[in-house]
């Protein structure tokens, strides 16, 4: 199974000059013209009487085609400039080594910074809110990382565990009045059980098939939530979900509140800071557990499963239970994150649990360099931070996200962190290049 050099590859011969670039750009522009002629050139809309009307947008069409034309030239020039080795030579080797060496300090520095975020940005609720959101996705990323990054099981339905955790907490809290701290483990366990139930049927499936079945499971959960109105409130969701308390003391303005007990003025930021540290603690626990598990036989079995499942069986490893534990562990963390999400928002609805969420978390894991804890954290920061830049331009957000996914796969499919750290060593830990690490087939 080798590479076959077929005709027209994407590398142009170096001596073909500007004429070639121009020709290619013209071709691209022409294709763009045809593709966008109707979709951009004409704009349809349902009129007030329900009848369909349209108007032309030839100027926007012209601009788009022009952008494609120019962009094609630019891309080709950049490609020529970078040469056959691509972007990897862009950064000189010395700098690359320096970055790799300082990588050891990135994680602790980032941690210290994160601990101090509420202190530094106390007055900026927006930043604190964003921080909570980022940390939620970091935790989700670390959870999915166990399934996809370590065990190599392609899960496209991770949002299902998130949803189970969120709805479990919401229902238990609103129905039985149980506190967040009691419901949290319940939510996790229920999500974990669903993870095992998901795991059983998909044990023998590989690669693409495993992916699409997990996607189907995720969608089924969402559809059941939407339609089982008596239980979940359907599209209206569940509201008035109680917030977490600190040892039973609620963070409310009244005389029973936390502020009153401490004798300080009430500030709504208190609760936000409280939530921030809760999710940070949860994420750090997820991280700690994952790192410990990696060094334990179960974690090593997960990674071995990803590398070569057949060899695992030949070594006496029960691949069935290995897969199930991977699903269960990932689901556990997803469920915890879901419960947190519910309590942070105070309100949940099925709209928050779409396939797009699963894809987003998966993109975070892949971008981070599957298996790397630091990578996943950085990727979550980049992705969610990037999403925030699109405030006011929400329409374009998913469009850019899609394009970013395509570009990421073409340019750096192995993610940001290009290596894997071994879990045990005799003399010295040598990072293993991600070229050697298998991506798993499920």
């Amino acid at each position, binding site marked *: 199974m080798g*590479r076959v050099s077929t005709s027209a590859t994407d590398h142009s011969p170096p001596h073909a000059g500007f004429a070639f670039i121009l020709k290619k750009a013209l071709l691209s522009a022409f294709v763009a013209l045809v593709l966008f002629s109707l979709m951009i050139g004409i704009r349809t809309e*349902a009129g007030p009487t329900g009848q369909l009307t349209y108007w032309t947008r030839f100027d926007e069409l012209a601009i788009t085609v022009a952008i494609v034309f120019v962009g094609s030239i630019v891309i080709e020039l950049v490609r020529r400039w970078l040469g056959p080795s691509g972007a990897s030579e862009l950064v000189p080797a010395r700098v690359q080594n320096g970055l790799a060496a300082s990588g050891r300090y990135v994680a602790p520095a980032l941690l210290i910074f994160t601990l101090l975020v509420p202190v530094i940005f106390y007055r900026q609720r927006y930043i604190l809110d964003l921080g909570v959101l980022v940390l939620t996705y970091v935790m989700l990323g670390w959870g999915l990382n166990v399934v996809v990054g370590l065990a190599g099981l392609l899960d496209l339905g991770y949002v299902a565990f998130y949803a189970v955790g969120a709805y479990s907490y919401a229902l238990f809290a609103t129905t039985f009045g149980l506190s967040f701290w009691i419901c949290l483990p319940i939510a996790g366990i229920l999500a974990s059980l669903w993870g095992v139930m998901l795991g059983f049927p998909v044990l023998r499936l590989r690669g693409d098939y495993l992916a*699409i079945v997990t996607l189907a499971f995720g969608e089924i959960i969402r559809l059941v939530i939407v339609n089982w109105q008596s239980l979940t409130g359907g599209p209206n969701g569940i509201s008035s979900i109680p917030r977490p308390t600190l040892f039973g003391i609620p963070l409310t303005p009244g005389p029973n509140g936390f502020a009153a007990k401490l004798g300080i003025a009430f500030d709504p930021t208190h609760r936000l800071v409280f939530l921030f540290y809760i999710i940070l603690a949860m994420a750090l626990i997820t991280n700690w557990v994952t790192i410990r598990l990696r060094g334990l036989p179960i974690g090593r079995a997960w990674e071995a499963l990803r590398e070569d499942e057949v060899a695992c069986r030949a070594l006496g490893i029960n691949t069935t239970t290995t897969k199930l534990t991977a699903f269960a562990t990932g689901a556990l963390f997803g469920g915890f994150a879901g419960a947190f999400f519910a309590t942070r928002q105070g309100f949940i609805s099925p709209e928050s649990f779409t396939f797009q969420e699963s894809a987003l978390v998966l993109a975070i894991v892949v971008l981070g360099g599957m298996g790397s804890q630091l990578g996943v954290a950085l990727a979550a920061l980049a992705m969610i931070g990037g999403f925030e830049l699109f405030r006011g331009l929400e329409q374009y957000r998913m469009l850019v996200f899609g394009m970013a996914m395509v570009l990421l796969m073409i340019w750096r499919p192995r993610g940001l962190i290009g290596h894997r750290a071994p879990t045990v060593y005799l003399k010295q830990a040598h990072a293993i290049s991600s070229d050697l690490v298998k*991506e798993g087939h499920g």
Partner: protein
Amino acid sequence: MDYFAQQLINGLVLGSIYGLIAIGYTMVYGIVGMINFAHGDIFMIGGFIALISFLILVSFGLTAVPVILLIVLLVSMAITALYGWTVERIAYRPLRHSFRLAPMLSAIGMSFVLSNFSQVAQGARVKPVPPIITGGYTLHHSADGFVVRLSNVQIVVVLTTIVLLAIFTWLVARTRLGRDMRACEQDQTMAALLGVDVDRTISMTFVIGAALAAVAGMMYLLYYGQVDFFMGFVAGIKAFTAAVLGGIGSLPGAMLGGLAIGLIETFWSAYFSVEYKDVAAFSILIVVLIFMPTGLLGRPEVEKV
């Protein structure tokens, strides 16, 4: 009994649409071994192109329905085929020798690009059209007043499907392109060594799949009278289920699977519950992949150790 007959008709029509989409999935999986996640959205684009083409033609004063239909069919097939070609060139071809995960994630990304492109370009609201083909035939008046109808739209959909299927089967069985496709399905390396232009063959596979999806989109528009930017996602999964049910890699299987899914969905909605019809479709996918991964007409695979 009459209710049953009506559902049977409806199910077969819906199934034809699914079958057309499913063929695209099965061909691509057969030749490059990947699930083209963006294919459902190609179907959606096809529907939109058809919609816009209709609008323009009608506004130019064209009234002859068969002429309009033909022009719209050709235009939407051509433009959507170009979409399919572009998607393959941009998002899949560079990744052909990459590891398994890359093309799939790229396809998911492309799916988002297409559906959101449609949302941005044409707005998020559903686009309705007035019925273009009207009338039909009453097949049976039952005693309790239920009427079994076969509408003209339904006839058009089924006839178009049959004609295209015939053309397409001829294409695969008799032409050079079809032979090249089958060769690439079996052994790409060998086919290339024997002079088959693998890149072009793969591109043509995507193009043909997209063209058929465009037809499905147009049929959907005619039948249901509306399109929206999100219709590709669910239809895509159902069509993929159809492809798997029929046996992935098998063309008659894709059509067979499509008809089966169409019938199951229609009967489920009619006799059980409409709300959970999508759940039924997804569950079938899971059940088939677990218990019958080679589908009805597929070939079993033996794991090589």
